């Protein structure tokens, strides 16, 4: 592990906490353009372990209707990677409010990042205090071949996904090449389309647990309430909630109380 990664908030989080971690996703620029830091702070205050901020994209193929729609609204609101970095610029050393200390992941698709420039992107991530990224359509081999050194240079983690169809050999390979954690996609699906944890899913969770991977694991897709969070936490180090939180923001708003209420229903 490089010097930069030892100081990374995500690796440091997993070094002292390994159970029932909650990662919550929201789309930057949704419901309103300037909600980003409000929601981020709300999630931190509510005790979320990692915040995953979506960089909206016009063609999010791995996402279901809820996140697609939030992406569309965010883009209509004028959100871009540039704007997001500007919004996050002072969050780590805010002198007015509580500074943001919670680990931050950016999730998005590769094309906007390519247009921003990969090096420029990593540099900005480091500057504003982003700890890692999830770029589902940047395949692992291409990442390793073209971009891994740049990510390392700026201490930015790239979180990789595994699915129930990922072969054991490939999981081992992904485990070797990962830092931070592995994102376990709960079933063959896009986001927001899964209901509950099935027996098949449990078998898959057990199989991965028994592999004793080097990296911690968080389970995502279909985690939307206390029960699913609880089940996921039995088999992994925690779970990721996305679409359910977007729906909550749409219905109940972005106030600290609303966000706290949501996190409480998931946690307890």
């Amino acid at each position, binding site marked *: 592990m490089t010097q930069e990664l030892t100081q990374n908030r995500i690796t440091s989080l997993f070094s002292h906490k390994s159970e029932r971690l909650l990662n919550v996703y929201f789309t930057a620029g949704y419901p309103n353009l300037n909600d980003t830091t409000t929601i981020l702070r709300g999630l931190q205050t509510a005790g979320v372990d990692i915040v995953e901020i979506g960089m909206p*994209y*016009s*063609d999010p*193929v*791995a996402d*279901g209707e809820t996140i*697609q729609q939030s992406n*569309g609204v965010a*883009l209509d609101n004028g959100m*871009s*990677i*540039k704007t997001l970095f500007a919004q996050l610029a002072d969050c780590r050393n805010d002198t007015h409010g509580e500074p943001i200390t919670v680990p931050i992941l950016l999730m998005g*698709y*590769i*094309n*906007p*990042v*390519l*247009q*921003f420039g*990969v090096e420029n992107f990593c540099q900005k991530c480091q500057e504003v205090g982003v700890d890692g990224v999830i770029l*589902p*359509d*940047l*395949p*692992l*081999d*291409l990442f390793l*071949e*073209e*971009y891994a050194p740049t990510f390392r240079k700026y201490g930015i983690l790239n979180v*990789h*996904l*595994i*699915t129930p*169809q*990922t*072969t054991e050999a*490939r999981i081992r390979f992904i485990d070797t090449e990962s830092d931070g954690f592995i994102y376990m*996609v709960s079933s*063959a*699906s*896009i986001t927001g*389309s899964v209901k509950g944890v099935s027996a098949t899913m449990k078998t898959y969770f057990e199989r991965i647990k028994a592999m004793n991977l080097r990296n911690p694991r968080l389970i995502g897709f279909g985690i939307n309430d206390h029960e699913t969070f609880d089940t996921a936490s039995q088999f992994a180090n925690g779970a990721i909630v996305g679409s359910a939180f977007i729906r909550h923001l749409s219905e109940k708003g972005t106030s600290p109380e609303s966000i706290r209420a949501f996190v409480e229903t998931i946690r307890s």
Partner: protein
Amino acid sequence: MQTTLEPQTSFEVSDKGFYGHFGGAFIPEMLYPNVEELRQNYLNIIADPAFQAEFWQLLEEYVGRPTPLFLAKRLSAHIGATIYLKREDLCHTGAHKINNTIGQILVAQRLGKQRIVAETGAGQHGVATATVCALMGLECIVYMGSIDMERQKPNVDRMRMLGAKVVPATSGSQTLKDATNEAMRHWINNPVDTHYIIGSVVGPHPYPDMVARFQSVISEEVKKQLFAKTGSENPDYMVACVGGGSNAAGAFYHYLNEPTVRLVAAEAAGQGISTGHSAATTALGKPGVLHGSRTILMQTEDGQVTEPYSISAGLDYPGIGPLHAHLFESGRGDFYAITDDEALQAGFQLSKLEGIIPALETAHALAALEKMNLNADDVVVVCLSGRGDKDLSTYSKFL
């Protein structure tokens, strides 16, 4: 953009799926097993003699190949060059699209898949997919932009009559790009039993190469037919329209390494390149990633994909196949942007001069002839990719 991946001079796809700087497989991990399964098997499956026998028999007896190469005398006189039309419009279902769906359904069967998903723009690929699914008794789901469903209603009815389920894509621009997104999502949700028949030379490797191989029958036949007629296999120009670019890929395929044959691609300029209502990808796009491959892409400065526009649903796509991006970048191909009006005019012209009503997509290729500054001794082959019956409601507005 960084380009450390295997610089190459040929026009064949590299092991990793690149044509020069373009191509690759930019897919989420959820699609990796499917695409990898296909990548590892497609060449062996296609090379298998039993596959070859079945493929060629179906092309001959079911599709109606070889399609004629027709000397268009009155069009030739009008343009002032010798123009041959490769009559893909005479294929069963009315367009070249079925060459690919026959090939892919045979691949799907050999991979043990029970269900087929596809996207469609003009509906031609959807119809070609529904047709082969009916032929082979496989379940068929076709995603189609809801706007396209309106403007290509006869094709929607044809697909339904053939037993396919047509699902409207209601996101984004509600056209081909969004239908492709939805088909990909469907594949992510059904990774084991479903094969995705992509209709053009787009998508993650190995799709662009596989589709080009199945469409390459077009130039394979042209070579033989032209030799029989002129004593030379090679025309001076091979002309085709490019949306994603599957008929062009097939028409260019066996000429890629024949430098005396100029490859001419006609893109849809829509209302005009600078009007904001266009689909002229090489004129308006820059390198980017869409639907699994690095290509030339119409996009905003922030990398959001731009909504394309063309009167022709089959050319209404913000990217082009990675092979075509490479042809453009390397200068091997000449790209022309044809407006709606120019295409309509060319469509009416061919109808009156030769008694052939071309698809609006194909009409773009015909319109390019007017812009190519041809000499009297030039021999030109135009890939007449499809017939215009499906476009009558559009044509009839201008009668």
